[in-house]
């Protein structure tokens, strides 16, 4: 198997404080990985590093030839202006940016794809609704429809099922499984360990330092989870410089 993403002694953080500390490892092409760990463990930070929003303090993230547009990223708190007058259809169609770009037209074939994506997330009939009128779960479905159209080889989902009911989460999880079946690489930050055990073959347990990374059953042991929970959440203002 080829690696899709390589972490080499990676340290990411804010204001000189590390939020991800000395991470090594490789994400294989086509892997389906759950990234778990307590709040403040560095999950979002790691994702921001992968998509290039955050530059590493030290070490390296090797994307093995992936270009920025081959990566689809669903942030935890998307900076979406829900009051903006735009329809569900147009919002989803933005996922076609890679083909259409700034000026490219959207033809019959693309319109079919947009409609297929909207129907795949169960929002048929909502096409012309303004995004401001959607519920939280419906909005998440819209964002997943947009991800579908992005046709990315690496998909990064930051807590995609938070504050979402079980039905919606199950529907969206089906899409994640579909991406996995299509050989796309998927990384998802999650808190529901039962969902992780049932659906994700590989797990990275993070608590600023990587606690364990491997098969779900071997990583999610009581000892590992306890170790992760003990991680001190707050930054230590008196912390000395890291020697490693």
């Amino acid at each position, binding site marked *: 198997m080829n690696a899709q993403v390589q972490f080499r002694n990676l340290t990411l953080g804010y204001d000189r404080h590390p939020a991800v500390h000395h991470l090594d490892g490789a994400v294989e092409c086509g892997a389906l990985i759950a990234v778990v760990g307590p709040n403040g463990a560095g999950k979002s930070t790691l994702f921001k590093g992968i998509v290039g929003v955050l530059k590493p303090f030290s070490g390296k993230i090797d994307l093995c030839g992936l270009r920025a547009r081959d*990566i689809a990223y669903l942030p935890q708190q998307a900076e*979406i*202006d829900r009051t903006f*007058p735009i329809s569900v259809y147009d919002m989803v169609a933005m996922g076609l940016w890679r083909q259409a770009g*700034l000026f490219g037209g959207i033809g019959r074939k693309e319109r079919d794809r947009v409609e297929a994506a909207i129907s795949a997330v169960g929002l048929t009939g909502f096409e012309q609704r*303004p995004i401001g009128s959607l519920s939280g779960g419906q909005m998440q479905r819209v964002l997943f429809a947009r991800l579908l159209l992005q046709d990315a080889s690496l998909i990064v989902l930051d807590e995609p099922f938070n504050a979402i009911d079980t039905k919606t989460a199950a529907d969206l999880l089906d899409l994640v499984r579909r991406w996995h079946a299509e050989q796309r690489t998927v990384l998802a930050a999650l808190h529901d360990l039962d969902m992780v055990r049932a659906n994700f073959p590989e797990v990275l347990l993070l608590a600023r330092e990587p606690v364990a990374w491997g098969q779900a059953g071997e990583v999610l042991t009581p000892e590992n989870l306890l170790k992760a929970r003990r991680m001190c959440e707050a930054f230590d203002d008196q912390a000395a410089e890291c020697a490693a």
Partner: protein
Amino acid sequence: MSPYALLIAPFADYEFLRRALVGALALALGAGPVGVFLMLRRMSLMGDAMAHAILPGAAVGFLFAGLNLFAMTAGGLIAGLVVALLAGIVARTTELKEDASLAAFFLVSLAVGVTIVSARGTNIDLLHFLFGNVLALDDQTLLLVAAIATLSLVTLALIWRPLVLECVDPGFLRSVSRAGGPVHIVFLALVVMNLVGGFHALGTLLAVGLMMLPAAAARFWARDITLMIAVAVAIGILSGYCGLLLSFHSGVPAGPAIILVAGAAYAGSVLLGSVGGLLRRGIPRRHLEA
């Protein structure tokens, strides 16, 4: 008074009114869409600040060349762009937010501008700067205002997709394209350009009026951005037409009359608008079944 005498005769009889009408129409076409985007990006007051920022530049042009269209336009454009960029830099590099840094810049700009104009010119000049003179648009100025409107519409069409995306979901735009930064700057340039156009007709203090009032009013009539822009342009054009008539028949100064009509359109929209207007909210209607 016959409808013809009331509504059409003034424009048929007086050339300066026809010119004013054409000028107002061009302003509405260019400034309306820009205003809608400013409003949707919660930058309405920024338009106001930018309008003031133009003043010292135009005043410097005036200082060197008198009431020369080219010098004042160039000065205004440069000053406006410099303030927009400086405010952006201060906001990005310090803790101050963009609105606060703009407020700081525009207060200083206004003071500098008024000082410069007063030092060289008369009070009439100052009034011209602050309130413009829509009834004295010469060929050159009309051409300039029309050119600005044309350029705005063409540019908006070109940057439409990334501009909308920048407003709705800037994070997503960053992830798929690097167009966000340049598009923001082009948009700021459009704002400044339209304000300079408005400045010649309506003066510093009112230039923003035809930009923001129709946009704010349009929000109450449309749920879709394209329609919202069409409504804003229509309200702007109607304000120009009705304002000039009001001014002609009642003797109110023309610039303020146009803005007053636009203000009335805004007030009417807040009250009666079909999308979230007060009256609609106030009338209790039975809820639906599903």
